[in-house]
């Protein structure tokens, strides 16, 4: 089959690769209809993950049709149109049974070889290095989906592919961010990042009854989208004193909930690398911590990774803040989000700013990485 593979830093290619196959009784094979770029791909694209190998297939967000099912699959039949949640989760561990699929204990193969002192979440991911417990991604003609009864969801007929696609990752991640922030009616919510996850976080906050939602970014087209589709107030940090604006628009209190959805920088300067600075600079996180009201909640979602310098820990303790995070979405919200999509309460298709054939995958990622031509998400069709 054809698949979009990582080749080297900043180099992708569509290649012929072996077909996926059923490896467990709870697996299905999905013929992909749509797949989307996502922010978590950018560090991989840049070659920052040493476990990535040439030939690994990217793509964490996809939708398709079931073409094969293992003998233990109960909820799906051949021909079902399904969206596949971005977390691979077993459904039977302590976390899954409480709806915390992003923390699943059994979602990645052979986690025992990982140093337990550095143990991270064991939930699996698509389009991540196999050596890190990941599975081949959805930028391909076919993809294997483990634990399909838990992670694949039948799409209602009323929801088309372009909308349902984002129920895989961006929409549940945004919903989870609002939930982790415990957004309540009347809250003031600030979101850093007007990409797909940021916009859908803003939308989730609005749906949960937030009185004001403010989105911080520097890309005018993204800010306009957040304003139009999520009812958010845009703040361009190049032209605005963000801290002052947030204070003013929250009655001097500071936002009740601050969500950071900016992803990670795709590259670092050569000077930083030579100096051994293997850290990220959490500008948005720092700003959020300083802006948040006392006893508020700061949520960091998405691709944040590694270590950070100059984290304002004193502000966290001084203001009695709660800081929460999640790299992957939970799966329990996907049916609810599909239901909202079917009722037209949640619209996501505008995020697919560039629709391309899979063969144009490298160009799509270049547009996405560089935010060129107003690209929010590139969506591929095999």
């Amino acid at each position, binding site marked *: *089959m054809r698949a979009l593979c990582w080749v080297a830093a900043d180099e992708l290619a569509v290649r*012929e*690769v*072996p*077909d*996926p*196959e059923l*490896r*467990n*009784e*709870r697996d299905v094979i999905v013929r992909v209809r749509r797949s989307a770029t996502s922010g978590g791909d950018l560090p991989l694209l840049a070659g920052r993950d040493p476990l990535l190998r040439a*030939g690994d297939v990217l793509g964490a967000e996809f939708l398709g049709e079931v073409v094969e099912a293992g003998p*233990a699959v109960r909820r799906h039949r051949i021909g079902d149109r399904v969206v596949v949640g971005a977390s691979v989760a*077993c*459904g*039977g*561990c*302590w976390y899954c*049974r409480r709806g915390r699929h992003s923390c699943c*204990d*059994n*979602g*990645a*193969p*052979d*986690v*025992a*070889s990982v*140093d*337990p*002192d550095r143990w991270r979440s064991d939930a*699996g991911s698509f389009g991540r290095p*196999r050596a890190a*417990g990941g*599975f*081949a991604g959805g930028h391909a003609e*076919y993809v*294997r989906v*483990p*634990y399909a009864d838990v992670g694949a969801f039948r799409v209602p007929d009323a929801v088309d592919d372009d909308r349902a696609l984002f129920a895989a990752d961006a929409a549940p991640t945004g919903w989870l961010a609002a939930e982790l922030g415990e957004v309540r009616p009347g809250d003031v919510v600030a979101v850093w990042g007007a990409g797909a996850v940021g916009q859908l976080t803003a939308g989730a906050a609005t749906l949960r009854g937030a009185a004001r939602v403010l989105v911080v970014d520097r890309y005018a087209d993204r800010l306009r989208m957040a304003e139009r589709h999520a009812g958010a107030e845009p703040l361009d940090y190049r032209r605005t004193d963000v801290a002052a604006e947030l204070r003013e628009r929250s009655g001097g209190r500071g936002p009740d909930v601050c969500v950071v959805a900016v992803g990670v920088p795709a590259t670092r300067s050569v000077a930083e690398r030579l100096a051994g600075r293997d850290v990220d600079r959490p500008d948005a996180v720092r700003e959020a911590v300083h802006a948040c009201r006392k006893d508020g909640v700061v949520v960091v979602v998405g691709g944040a990774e590694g270590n950070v310098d100059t984290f304002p820990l004193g502000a966290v303790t001084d203001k009695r803040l709660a800081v929460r995070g999640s790299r992957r979405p939970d799966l329990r919200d996907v049916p609810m989000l599909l239901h909202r999509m079917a009722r037209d309460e949640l619209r996501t298709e505008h995020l697919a700013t560039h629709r391309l054939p899979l063969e144009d995958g490298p160009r799509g990622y270049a547009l996405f990485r560089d935010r060129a031509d107003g690209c929010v998400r590139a969506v591929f069709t095999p």
Partner: protein
Amino acid sequence: MGPIRRLARARSALGGGARAGAARLVRVPRRSGRPGADRDRSAAAGWEVVTVDRPPEQVLPDGRWPEPLDQLDGVVEVRVRPAPGDRGTELAARPLDGAAAPAGLAAHLVGDDPGLLVRRTLRQVKQRVEAGEVLRADRSALDRRTARG
């Protein structure tokens, strides 16, 4: 704290001809912990432990070691106790002093860290009980067919 059951089955080797003649287990402490807190190299190998979100009677039906832990019969001791807070069962194992090391492929996989084999086995027990199967990785590109059948 619930009762602690120790289930040690000491045998001289893993059993079976394929396992005969294996070298003795070599305990190599992993580098971990705080600076200056080096482990006592003469101390017994540490316990590896997982919490399985099921009651003890489901983790060890009739008190028998579940697959694939039963394959380590004779080389590890096992400890079982209910996890606090209704979190299921704490299942722990550690290599027995003087037990023989695995041979062949198992030895290759374990390398110089016998804890890895114990840890991997416990994780597989947990997956079998909680998920009903041991999750397999995608097959390597080197040994798969290339055309959709």
